[in-house]
């Protein structure tokens, strides 16, 4: 009897705990899935993304934005807003040197983003509005 009681306490209670966690977790809203390759529409931010595409590596709200191998920016996705800022390698935009690249965009469902992109420290590449659509998700890439 004592063994059964011990078993129920040590095993039964944690099982109920797991079920409780699964119930609680139903309410949690995770960040949108935005990992993959993005195509910039309409030529916005061409001085930063000359090839028109960039890729996002995602671990939840922690992101890395890679622009044609010229910049690899640590980024964050909070409340549906992507914020990225970091130094570019030489040559991303003529005359801008290693001025930091900044991206700030609202991400909707995870398939489209709209915001501004540019190199605020460089007169030749100011922040410009841009929009982009996700063309390849990480699972299928």
């Amino acid at each position: 009897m004592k063994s059964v009681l011990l078993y129920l306490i040590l095993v039964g209670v944690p099982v109920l705990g797991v079920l409780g966690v699964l119930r609680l977790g139903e309410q949690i809203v995770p960040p949108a899935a935005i990992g993959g390759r993005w195509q910039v529409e309409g030529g916005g931010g061409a001085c930063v993304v000359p090839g028109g595409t960039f890729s996002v590596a995602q671990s939840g709200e922690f992101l890395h934005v890679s622009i044609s191998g010229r910049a690899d920016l640590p980024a964050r996705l909070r409340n549906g807003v992507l914020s990225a800022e970091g130094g570019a390698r030489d040559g991303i935009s003529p005359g801008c040197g290693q001025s930091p690249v900044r991206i700030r965009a609202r991400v909707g469902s995870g398939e489209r983003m709209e915001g501004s992109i540019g190199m605020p420290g460089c007169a030749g590449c100011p922040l410009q509005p841009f929009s982009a659509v996700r063309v390849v998700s990480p699972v299928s890439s």
Partner: protein
Amino acid sequence: MHGILLLLIQIGVVLVVARAVGYAFRLIKQPQVVGEMVAGIILGPSLLGWAAPGVSAAIFPAESLGVLATLSQVGLLLFMFLIGLELDPRLLRGRGKAAVVTSHVSIIAPFLLGSILALYLYPRLSDASVDFVGFTLFMGAAMSVTAFPVLARILTERNLLRTKLGAVTLACAAVDDVTAWSLLAVVVAIVRAGEGQIPLWITFAGTTAYVAGMFVVVRPLMKHVLRMYESRGHLSQDVLGILLLGLLASSAMTEWLGIHALFGAFLFGSILPRDREFVRDVTEKLEDLTVVFFLPLFFASTGLRTSIGLVSGPELWGFFGLVMLVAVAGKFGGSTLAARLTGLSWREASALGVLMNTRGLMELVILTIGLDIGVISPALFAMMVLMALVTTFMTTPLLEIIYPARMLVDESDESDEDEDAQTTVVIPVSLPSSGPALLRVARALAPADHLRVYGLHLVRPESRSVGEAADDAPAERPPASPLAPLLAAAMGTGLDVRTLDFVTRDAGRDIADVARQKRADLVLMGWHKPVVSQSILGGTVADVFRHTRSDVAVYLERTFRPWTRILVPYRGGVHDRAALDLAGRIARTTGAEVTLLHVVAPTQPAGGDGAAPGETFPDGVVLRVVTASDPVQVLVDVAREGFDLVVVGVSDAWGLEPTLFAPRHERLARECPASMLIVRRYVAPAAARRLRLGRSEVASA
């Protein structure tokens, strides 16, 4: 670069680095597999890719990694098949409620904590493409896993397999493995169903039918395969071919069902007949290639996908700290608490907790599946890989602190200690043929009902597989065991002979440990040529002399005739006295006559040289005093006068000192025509100092 050439270079680099790092880790007393896991990380973006990106890109270009990954997956299929094959259902039976409760708690406690951690990490390190239920179940399963193979190897190397702790730990680990894989199958099915690949009901219905088919149809068929094996007496290529085809078919089926090919490999291995020889032969055929060739490729493939750089900044390192805390608290804490509540001592319970906390390779396998199906993100993958490395790395040192080797207690043997046994002899057997001769000496020391003999066989670590390690039942010892001749010689004598065999890294010290635990009166060893020395008293024998706190004797058999005349050379030293004691005991049981040969140097009076004046000897001992400058030559000459056995204490006087590389000192052992028993009496350090002091005082006087 040409595809096949690049692949060959990649494999070569991986194997070299894996062996080198594995060897380095062995030097710091870590399992080789930990080093190989680290080697994988070294070759990936975390180190090689960061320190030498050009070299990394040349050897491991991104577009070539698919081939390496596929090859490593094939290796994993073989590995999981072996894990299933070596899973012994007997481990799960008869371990009592302690094992049942402890094993279940060791799963559910980390599972619960992993689930709670998932509540916190899901909105931070996951995204909307991952279902919360899948994420949570995966985190729970990943936290629950235990590295059964690494654990079995650690238990084997520390001689804990036959203890209650070892038995309960193995049972728990086996239950954990099966449960974790089953849970993971459910997680993979849920995730893939969520992606719309295969409807969940098809996966579950198909899996149920598949598992039932494996047990009801395939398992009986495999008994026919076992009969084929038995009829041929060895594992033929036909039988091996059938097994490999079965492995591939089973893996393909589970992959098609949506629960991953590895489950099929594992299940096929686990339903094969549990015939000891069959399992051993299959394991021997496949294990080396899998462990030496394929597993390093898997570690490299995992390392190439692990970017520790993703864990950057205090926030992410804080998450890693949480992962570590939950992993250790759940597995170590849960297992320890459950083991303590079910009757193990705190020390044993903590040791079990440390062992169960070993994640090792199995964690990497599960994490790789998680990354492949997208249920965990790259940063969380890197954290979990680090956690697997740290928890595996910490096992050996923590165990050494909690359960040091010197506290090793072989409970299975101690539980039935017989206090009435007056003489206990430990016989380490290296050469099987020496067993009967050593038993002959032991039997001559005391009547059978007052004698207990422990036959000891030590195995080097690399010559034993996990499967063998997990099954230590003496009753099922294979006929080829080095202890078999000794046991055969003991049969029908009424002698209490027990056997112990385990893996050792330090034979001399382990023999000494066993002698201490068994309260042995005598460690009796046979002569065999040491590897690095021609000296009879060198190598392991010298180590045993150095470490053993009981008397030690080395037997050299020269003649097989019964002992009727025993010669004991004597100069009064402590080891000479031990030799005389042993000779007296042998004489009492065999009726032999003992002649005591006292050799006196020409410059010394009789009775000098350490022999106490007026010393008395047992009744019936024939005393013979000889004056000579070469005591060894005199002894050899006297031994030729028809003596069957010479019992001699180690002493420089007889040219018998237990020093390495000292063949010139062992002239007596080489030239004596009779069998010899060389005796060393244990003298406690304080007593030895008193003895030396006494001698120097005599000399100065």
